């Protein structure tokens, strides 16, 4: 599904953040990317999603057999790449529900599917809300405006569930959450596990992985993946800290 080869990326001011990332993710897998602050986790998410402000200086990324880096951000999204934001953005005056329907229909048009009318959309929404235990009032408010930290993250997971991506990247979705919100996020991710879908969880802490079992865990440090392993690696990290892994590598 996703092949990253020797990916180097820098900020527009020239600072190199990613220094040769290699990563291979197959459909059906859940990968966790862990690392300390400043290791390049969020930059990796941003570069994969096509955010402006980064320059890829070397390497390539293949997504579903296509050159991901040549696609515009919105095209990547319509091709099924979803990013759950670390800091979801407020859009005043735009109804959350309307925003989501606009997004879904943009993606459906891209796939040559008919757009959902309000009724069809509402039925799907209701079903998902129930699964994720989200109140309907969240939908009637403006996108992320006045949402608590937990509500914003729930909303991201809800959008992910509604958009049914092929590749979902969760950028520190667990940070700043209380245990209930964390469990909700985990439930959302577990529900999204599917044979034709890959999920990448970017996180600083191990605790989300108490509820979501990853197939692979990678440690990102200084813009490189310095260690990969199974779930046991996350537990070891939690116990010994990032420093120990770095020293060992």
């Amino acid at each position, binding site marked *: 599904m996703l092949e990253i080869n020797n990916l180097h990326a820098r900020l527009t001011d020239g600072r190199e953040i990613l220094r040769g990332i290699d990563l291979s993710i197959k459909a059906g897998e859940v990968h966790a990317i862990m690392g300390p602050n400043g290791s390049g986790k969020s930059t990796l998410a941003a570069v994969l*999603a*096509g*955010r*402006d*402000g980064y320059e890829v200086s070397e390497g390539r990324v293949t997504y579903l057999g296509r050159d991901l880096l040549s696609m*515009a*951000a*919105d095209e*990547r*999204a*319509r091709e099924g790449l*979803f*990013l759950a*934001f670390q*800091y*979801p*953005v*407020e*859009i*005043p*005056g*735009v109804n959350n529900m309307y*925003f*989501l329907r*606009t*997004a*879904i229909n*943009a*993606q459906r048009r*891209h796939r040559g599917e008919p757009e959902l009318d309000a009724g069809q959309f509402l039925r799907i929404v209701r079903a998902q809300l129930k699964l994720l235990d989200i109140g309907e009032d969240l939908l009637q408010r*403006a*996108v992320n405006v006045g949402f608590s930290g937990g509500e914003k993250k729930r909303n991201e997971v809800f*959008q992910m569930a509604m*958009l049914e991506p092929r590749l979902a990247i969760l950028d520190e979705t667990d940070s700043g959450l209380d245990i209930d919100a964390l469990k909700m996020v985990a439930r959302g991710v577990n529900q999204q596990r599917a044979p034709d879908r890959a999920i990448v969880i970017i996180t600083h802490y191990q605790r989300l992985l108490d509820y979501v079992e990853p197939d692979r865990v990678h440690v990102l440090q200084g813009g490189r993946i310095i260690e990969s392993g199974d779930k046991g690696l996350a537990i070891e990290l939690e116990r010994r800290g990032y420093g120990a892994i770095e020293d060992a590598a």
Partner: protein
Amino acid sequence: MTASTETLQTVRSLSQEGYKYGFITDIEAETAPPGLDEDTIRFISAKKEEPEWLLEWRLAAFRAWREMTEPNWAKLQLAPIDYQAATYYSAPKQNAGPKSLDEVDPELLRTYEKLGIPLREREVLAGVAVDAVFDSISVATTFKEELGKLGIIFCSMGEAVREHPELVRKYLGTVVPQNDNFFAALNSAVFSDGSFAYIPPGVRCPMELSTYFRINAAKTGQFERTLLIADKEAYVSYLEGCTAPQRDENQLHAAVVELIAHEDAQIKYSTVQNWYPGDAQGRGGIYNFVTKRGACRGARSKISWTQVETGSAITWKYPSCVLEGDHSVGEFYSVAITNNRQQADTGTKMIHLGKDTRSTIVSKGISAGRGQNTYRGLVRVQPRAQGARNHTQCDSLLIGDRCGAHTVPYIEVRNPSARVEHEATTSKISEDQLFYCRQRGLSAEDAVSLIVNGFCKEVLKELPMEFAVEAQKLLAVSLEGSVG
């Protein structure tokens, strides 16, 4: 026949007549020679078979206009207007328009396709009574009979002068006098047609009344005049839409709208203004100099203006309320977009004369490209206006870094019990917002339009439903090309 079917058929036959059959009249007799003098005014008045008093009224306006100079206080840059080069009267004629769509400039067709106007027009018009004004004359008014049963008069201004001279004479110029300002005086001298409506006491007008203005002829100004009167306890909602074809020269549009609300009456006046804005380099486009004013004559009367201004090269327009009656209410909700080289200097005046009068102003200005957008508003509380209140909210949104937003509020309070509030914000569409939308699959342009619609929501929700949909689409089209 149901009301909506009637409208559909009228609209259909209109477009067919325009293209297929045309209007069979002598060409020379239809268009006034270019230039403006007393003979031009006599020509227009004679053409419209007007009574002597109206001709005198026009001539008085013309004499006043000759002594006046163009206002120069607005933040607008424009080439001098040659008033003697323009034509002041033009009625549709058979050979003027294209005979089929094949003859229409494909660029124009594309613009309309993007606007969805032909289709939208029909949808919007269903269930709405329409007076269609094409260049200088009203070509059709729908639902007149049905409205007539309720005692509502809705017709072209020309017809009102013939059929209801007593009403026209009683109210014309009582809100916007002939010599009110340069452009109003010009309009008073040469106004060609426009709409007239009178809602009798206690009647709630059962449908939206609407005028659809279209400038078509080249080198011709449009000077329509609209007069709406809501008698005691009457209610009316009125819509106004406008379009004009693309032309390289600037065309002048100087309209006057007068509203009168008697005791306990309410008038809601909505405009979606989409005159041709000129091209990306600033060539062509409509110069829109409009005087709109409503008088809340009676106690507890209410006048509400809602405008969405997307078109015109120049917009100079301040729909205002004179709150004469005690406890009367004035409202102004506005969205103004300037893209490319468009300039807008728009706002309102709320003049508080009566006791406990209230006014609300919500203005949303959006600037993109090299557009310049100015909010200019006056809130005046006169000594007798005990307990007057005003709240003004004025928000500007900038897209890109070559445009400008300006806010010029004037507040004059002559009664110590008044409460006047003014809030203003200026913001930019952030990269974060754009990326968030695009990451969900929206194109950059759709993302901008979504964000802008959210920004304008408070105003758009004041529009009647059918108009709100059209307005949202217009916002999107107006901002095309504003993001890289």
